Each structure stands twice: as C-alpha cells, then as structure tokens.
C-alpha cells in the first residue's frame, strides 16, 4: 500500500518518487489518521515496514520500552496480532465499536537523511473517542520515522507520547 494508492478524498496523492518533504509527510500523517478513524486497520498496518515498531510509552520522557512498561509496545509480530484482533467479531471491548476523530497539526521534520529518503517527523494530535455513552479525549505528540522506499512512504517506527500517559486509564483498544 502506497500513499498514492490511498483514497485521498481530494487531497494530492504523493508520488512514490518524491523525496520526503514537509508537505508529503504531513499528507501522509493525515492519511494515516484517516485510515485509523475509518477503522481500516489492515491498511494502517501496511504502512509499517517489516521490522517496524509502534510505541505508546507509559511515562513522560520514557527512554526505552525494554526496562519500563508501556501502554503499548509492539514489535511487528505483536502489531500484526493487535490488528488481527481488532477485526475479530469477538473483541468484546469493541462491542460497540469506538468512533474516533483525529486532528493532526504542528508538523515538523526533526531529522532527515542526507538523501532525503528518511526522516523523523514530529506532530501534535488530538483524538476524540466515543463509545458507550462516554467520550474520551486524548492528546499529545507523535514521532514517526518515515522512509521513502519502493513501496512508497512507510513507517519504520512510531512513538506516541500522550499528555496523560501516566494517568489511570480505562482500556485503550483503538491504536493512537
């Protein structure tokens, strides 16, 4: 799945040949958020590289996921399992399903490879989640390490720092 193959809904599709610039990165994040909001989790998974990791730390400024717990820390293997479970008709914590709405903003490129084919993008997000008569709001900072490869833009890793990462939470099921 490349960015160009996504249904962009009127936005400019990124070309697989374009070197990663701010506009391409921002479009990519918006499309990623759209896949998540639409519950197209298989397509979301396809954005990740074969050895990608996805990380939601449990502490502010957490240094690594090895020696400290995380709200979510998935290597590619566990991420595939997480996504497969989301499609299960027996995922009771998603019966009824959550509805989500994400806003992405303040996108900046923090680091870029000299050839422009890899970069770390920082963004801010706000996420509304509605389920069973309750609306929750999450917000924080995302870091994506994006690479431009043969399959278009892909996520080599993604880190999501929630503002309230160390608060008591009810179950977190829909990925950030």
């Amino acid at each position, binding site marked *: 799945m490349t960015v160009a193959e996504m249904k962009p809904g009127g936005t400019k599709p990124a070309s697989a040949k374009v070197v990663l610039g701010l506009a391409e990165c921002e479009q990519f994040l918006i499309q990623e958020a759209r896949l998540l909001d639409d519950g197209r989790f298989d397509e979301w998974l396809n954005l990740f590289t074969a050895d990608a990791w996805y990380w939601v730390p449990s502490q502010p400024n957490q240094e690594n996921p090895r020696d400290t717990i995380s709200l979510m820390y998935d290597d590619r*293997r566990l991420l595939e399992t997480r996504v497969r479970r989301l499609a299960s008709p027996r995922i009771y914590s998603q019966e009824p399903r959550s509805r989500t709405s994400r806003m992405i903003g303040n996108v900046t490129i923090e680091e870029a490879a000299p050839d422009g084919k890899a970069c770390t993008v920082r963004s801010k997000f706000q996420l509304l989640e509605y389920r069973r008569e309750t609306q929750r709001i999450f917000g924080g900072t995302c870091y994506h390490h994006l690479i431009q490869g043969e399959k278009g833009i892909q996520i080599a890793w993604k880190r999501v720092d929630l503002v309230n990462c160390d608060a008591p939470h009810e179950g977190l099921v829909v990925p950030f």
Partner: protein
Amino acid sequence: MTPIAGEQIRSLVQPGRVHRRVYTDEEIFDLELERIFGSAWIYVGHESQIKLPGDFLATRIGRKPLLLVRDSDGNIQLLHNQCAHRGSMVVASDCGHTSEFRCCYHGWTYHLDGRLKAAPLLHGYPSHFDPKNSDTAMRRVPRVASYRGFVFGSHAKDGPSLEDFLGYMTTSFDDLIDRAPDGDLEVAGGVFKHTYRGNWKLYLENLCDAAHPLFVHQSSIDAAQQQSDDTYSDGSGEIAIRQMRQNGASYSFWEANVGIWTYPNGHSFLGDYHDDAKLVAALNDPVFREYHAAMEAKKGKQQAKKILDTRRWNSNVYPNLSFMSQFQQLRVVHPLTVNQTVVHAYTFRLGGAPTRMFENAISFANIVNGTGSLVLTDDLEIYNRIDLGLLSAGSEWLEIGRGYEGDQPDEHGGWRGKNSTSEIYIRNMFDTWLNYMAVEKPINGGRSSVSSHAAESRP
C-alpha cells in the same frame, strides 16, 4: 439511617450464590471500607520502594491517602498523609526523598516518623493545645508489618499477626522472592494504573477464574494463534503471543492439569496453566538457561530445582492483592466508589537474574496488566458489563456455585477445588467477607459454613 443489621448482611450470601446488592449497594460499600479495609492487613508497598532513610511512597488503604516512609532510624512508618492542623494532604508527590515533611498551608513540619517537629505561631494557640501530644502529628496507622519485604498496614489496633493472617499464603511470597538468585526483589519498571466502572470485588473474582479465558479472550487467542512465527520480532512480542495462545487452553486441560487452592481469610492461588515449552521455563530459551545457571550457582542444584518446580499462577491475598511469581507481577485493587475501581500493577526485578529476564517481565506486564493490552482490555469490558447488568433486578442472585460439591480439604488447612474451574475461591472470599461484615455475630476462622459446603441445600 439505620445501619444494616448483621442478619441482613448474612442473608446476602447463600450456599453457592450471592445477592447482587453486594456489588451495587453504596451502604454496603461504605461498610466494606470500614469493616474490611478498616481492619484487615492491606498491602501498602514493598521495602525496595523506600530503601534509604528519608525515602517515602504515597500509598493508600481503601480511599485513605497514606505515606509509607523509611524514618531516620531505618524503621518503616505508615502515616496518614494529613496535616494535624487543618487536615491538608501534606505530601503531593508519588514518591521521593526528604528530611522532614512540611505542610504547604501554614508550614507545620513533621519528623519522618510523623511526630510534630515545629509549627509557626505556636504562642497563638490556646493553652490546652499541646504540640507534644502524640496525637498532634501525622498520625500513624496502628499496625504496620512486613513479610520478607512486602509491607502491610492494618487499621485494627489488635488482631492476628501478619503471618497468621497470611497463613499458608506465605509460601506464595516465598515462591516469588526465592526466584531471585540473590534473594532480593526490587519494584522496577513503572506502574500501570487501570480503571474500570465496576465493583472492586469483581477483580480478584476474575483472577483465579479458569473458565473465562476461552470466552473473554477469544479475540486475542484467535489473533495470536493465527500469528505467523516468521514475522520479525525483537523478542518482546514473543512472550505476549505465547501467553495469549495459552489462554486458549481447552477446558479438559484446565480440569485435568491445573488446580485451585483456597485458605483461611479469603486467600487463594491458581495452579500454573503453562508448561515448560509454552511460557516460563522455556528450557530451550537461552535467557532462561542463563537464569537457571545463576539460580543453581547461588542456591545449589537441588534448591534451585525445588524453587523452579513450584508452579503457581495468580496468588490472591484477600481483600485486594494479587501477585504472580513466574513473571514477577503484583496488582493492588483500590476501591474508589461502589462501582469505580482503580488497579495499580507493578513488576519486580529479580536480584542476580539476567537483564533479559526483567525485560521479559516487562513484556509480560504490557500484555497482561497493560492498559492497552490485547488481553486485559476485554477483562475490563466484562467488569463494566457486570456493573451494567446488575442495574437490572431481573436476576437477584449471582451464581458462585461451580464445583460446589467437589470442595476437598487441603493438607495445609485450606480447601481445594475439585479442579481449577471450581468457583471455590469466590465462595472462600465471600465466607471471609461475611466474617468481616456481619460483625454482630462473628464467625471464627476464615471459612464459615454459609456458602462453602455442599451438605446443605439452598433455602
């Protein structure tokens, strides 16, 4: 308001069933805080969290904010986190190190053992005010005691010692502690705080329930069983996937291979439902082999084997503690309201074990206790659904009778279920619940005759 009579409370627990009110009635909830959390030994922290004089940890019993402190003499103190002046909470941090406690309101300061050290404007107080009165202090919880590093507090001035209260469950703590090659444990890796809309009792009632995983966790079992082992893993996903797959063990496996044991005062443990190939020992795993060698080097071959052959899954200490030795997990259930609960989950580092053992424990914590876990989130959903279902009075009585006719005495003074899917451990908790709650006519011992035995039929 007339307090609920003991007779009325006793009528809520009958052989093999309990009335829905025990989970929904605010008056009963308040009584539980007073009579159970106000007298039982309650886990408040681990000594590794307050290693040095001046170290403190915010903790609680029921809803009461407390401080667990290592005082200047090295003794452990359990103080109400409350200023003797205007009642303000004195310490606002989760943990830290200090030489004294100072209230930010009017500057009253306290020694680490809670005694008043100084207060401004003392000349302004009336003559009968005595700053040396031991009650003019951050007051101590009447009793605090430690079992091999695990610290408990009790609001009851008198009562059984901590060891008597724990009884045979001390062997579960031993099982956890003795797995450290160097013999010491350290709380490490952060704390999960997960919350749910449901009664606090539902949590422990689920932790030794061998009959629920196959249903509640179907989505993660299926997803893990279908997962290709060839997909790239950095090792962290491996533990998670093994655990989820094993949750799919068949009922016949549970009933033939796993046991459930219960003991006085409401305690219980479930046998392990994994085998060497599937989860913990994983004898073909180089990390475990390294750990095994460290154990043998420190404890000798025979003793190491004895320790590692102990196979227990969750050990529940009534009313609100559950821990698990094989991946060094500990959970504390805190009641907030009759249908709002928060659970704090901790991981221990085994002294002298390979680093990777601790990293495996962290991976396990993420999948079993994590707020974003593929497993726990379905348990939290169940607690919420029970709470919603109990709004209905359609079914006044909840069944806790599975295995009811198979309870057997255990050689260590407890009772074991006929097999692991027995609900004996829930009945055992309600026997204890009655002992605390129906105080007008206390029933001696941890096991009343009300709900446990099959000899009597239902009224």
